[in-house]
């Protein structure tokens, strides 16, 4: 056991810190073009696509180096990169399952954010039971004709391309009739409608496909192999991002402590109230343990490529933590915790959702983490079956299959 950062990692951190100090935009990025320009700058400096192989335009860096970059970006509250789903997960899927022609056509422009990508998986009636999805793709010789509806699509309105799970064989068991294909979002058959969330903003969309066209040459893997592909790639990069995420929460904690010094109740600062101190102590212990867990995942990633089902423990841990954390913060802050627009400096936090805001914003966002990318209940099923080796449940849909 040695939890010191290796000398080369410390050096890399110093270098990254200096680069960010010199290059981080001083003002908020408002337009898509500004965000693309910042993304491009990070890419050229070697801070985007870090885990991708060099052959595909990546930097062949280590998960630790990637974690350090995200950690340092969190420290200075640098604006996030864009195309996160593309770079974190769609690109790697194409690298593993795609043809040479697909790799050549799509990967580089994904990295540089010249083309923005979205994920077309969830449907109104296919959430945790994703395999029951109904969007149909009919074989038309050289292309598929796509009809159906997707939901919870991040970056929908700005996306140029999407990775689509669709039903190509309705006659077989549901897991065996799904294909994975790339869909051009810029066509008349694709309509994107922003979806307003409980935060009041619209970072997700609904996508309607009416006689949309997907090329046969854009099929990923073989026909009806889509479920398998989705299964093998869901956990591709989970873990390396948790350190930066924890750092954003640690910065928010400093804001919270600052607030407890400035806000008074019964004539004394909140920080002097033993009940508040007990809450702060509990939540900080929890936060530190999430940091240790993030370091532990990174240490494991250095030794093997994939954390496998254990990544479900990480995801479950930090998303459930985020709910406890911001619930406690709002308890401490009282009505100040409800404000959606910051008036005081201590009310502002980086919500790590891509949407800056207040503790109230972060609190609302914390409800999303335990639902997206496999809900907490799905993670617990995975942990129970694949880590603890508990017997599979008897499922009605599997009985029929």
């Amino acid at each position, binding site marked *: *056991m*040695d*939890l*010191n*950062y*290796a000398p080369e*990692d410390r050096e890399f951190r110093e270098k990254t810190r200096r680069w960010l100090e010199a290059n981080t935009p001083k003002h908020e990025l408002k337009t898509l073009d500004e965000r693309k320009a910042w993304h491009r700058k990070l890419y050229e400096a070697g801070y985007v696509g870090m885990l991708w192989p060099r052959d595909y335009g990546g930097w062949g860096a280590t998960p*630790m180096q990637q974690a350090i970059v995200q950690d340092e970006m969190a420290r200075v509250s640098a604006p996030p990169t864009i195309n996160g789903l593309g770079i974190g997960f769609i690109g790697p899927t194409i690298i593993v399952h795609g043809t040479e022609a697909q790799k050549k056509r799509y990967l580089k422009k994904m990295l540089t954010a010249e083309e923005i990508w979205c994920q077309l998986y969830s449907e109104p009636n296919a959430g945790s039971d994703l395999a029951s999805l109904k969007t149909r793709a009919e074989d038309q010789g050289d292309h598929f004709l796509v009809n159906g509806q997707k939901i919870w699509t991040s970056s929908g309105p700005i996306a140029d391309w999407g990775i689509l799970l669709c039903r190509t064989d309705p006659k077989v068991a549901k897991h065996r009739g799904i294909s994975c294909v790339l869909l051009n979002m810029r066509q008349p058959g694709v309509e994107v409608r922003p979806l307003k969330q409980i935060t009041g903003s619209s970072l997700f969309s609904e996508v309607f496909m009416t006689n949309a066209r997907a090329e046969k040459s854009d099929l990923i893997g073989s026909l009806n192999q889509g479920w398998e592909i989705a299964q093998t790639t869901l956990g591709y990069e989970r873990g390396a991002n948790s350190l930066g995420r924890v750092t954003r929460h640690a910065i928010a*904690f400093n804001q919270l*402590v600052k607030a*407890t010094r400035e806000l008074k109740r019964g004539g004394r600062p909140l*920080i002097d109230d033993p009940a508040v*101190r*007990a809450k*702060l*102590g*509990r939540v*900080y*212990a*929890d936060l*530190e*343990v999430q940091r*240790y*867990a993030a*370091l*532990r995942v*990174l*240490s*494991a990633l*250095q*030794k093997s490529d994939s954390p496998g089902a254990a990544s479900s*423990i990480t995801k*479950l*841990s930090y998303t459930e933590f985020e709910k406890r954390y911001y619930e406690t913060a709002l308890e401490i802050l009282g009505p100040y915790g409800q404000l959606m627009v910051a008036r005081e400096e201590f009310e502002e936090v980086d919500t790590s959702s891509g949407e800056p805001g207040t503790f109230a914003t972060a609190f609302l966002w914390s409800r999303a983490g335990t639902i997206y990318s496999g809900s907490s*209940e799905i*993670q*617990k*099923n995975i*942990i*129970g*079956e694949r*880590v*603890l*080796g*508990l*017997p*599979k*449940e*008897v499922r009605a849909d599997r009985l029929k299959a």
Partner: protein
Amino acid sequence: MDYSFTSDQQLLKNSARAFLDEHCKPAAVRLLWDDPRGESDTMWKEMAQLGWLGLSLPEAYGGSALGMVESAILLEELGRAAYPGPYWPTVLAAAAVEAAGTDAQKKRWLSAIATGDARATLAFLDADMDWDPAVMTTRAEKTSNGWALSGTKRFVPWAHVANVLLIPARAPEGPTVFLVDPAASGLKMSPVQGMDLATRWVHLDLDKVPVATDGLLGAPGGAAPLLTGLLRRGAVGAAAEMLGAARRCLDMAVGYAKVREQFGQPIGSFQAIRHKCSEMLLEVENSHSAVYYAAWALDAKSEDEALAASVAKAYVGDAARKVCGEAIQVHGGIGFTWEYDLHIYFKRAKALEPMYGDVDYHREQIVRYVAR
């Protein structure tokens, strides 16, 4: 950055597991419940031979000079077995003698501890039950040939089998630690028994207990930093033991959920049980991260060692309570019986929860650290 054990550390863990599986079975633990001493001298000698008693002592005294990570590995296994005996109090007391003792004191006690010929303990708690090492109501007065200690000490682990008691008391110069002979005049021991029959505590009443000048550990008045360090170490060690007990409870619950059938199926196939087990695993793994981070931080003298120790004790206190309790729930009725072994580990975790600073104490330490 490497969070995994080295091959030597893994070897220590494996050999400890093998030894305790053989020599510290639940039946062996139960046999000692009614024993007045509550521990096995044979096992103590075997532990000495395995090098466990001198694990972190200097080689000059027969030790292996290993660190807190190794101690935590061993303590996790001891907790997993609900080992009954004065291992951790003795090792902590030895660390105190090693850190602050004179050559004569080290010669007298350290080799004897490493060879299994002596046991020791440390009396942290006074009658006011404050874990703050600076707060003590027990007094030390100067006499013509040394000191006289008066006051009360509460919940001193395994004092009834100790060959030497380390007793902190307030001298005119400030907090001071004394090496006290358990047979000294004016010292009254009253055993107290909690729910874990394999954990023994003793209340001490001191009425002008004489201590010769050579019983002074370190300079008079200078013991606060020593005690702070020992409490920190003690807390991490206790957290490691609780982690072991929690992992045992998890293993038992998962094992049971695979074989116990209701409604014609193993109960582990039901989400109500499976999700509970997954949450228990999450708490155990996070506890592992916390315990070994803190142990490493102590060894590395990392700048956050104090924070990490309090984080570990506070987090694992909550986690072990939850995991061991849920293990009973997964078992259902059988988990509530005396005959079934689960309560041995449930109670061990519970016994350690208030020791070396409880969850509330350590949360307050964390706030002092982060809001300085």
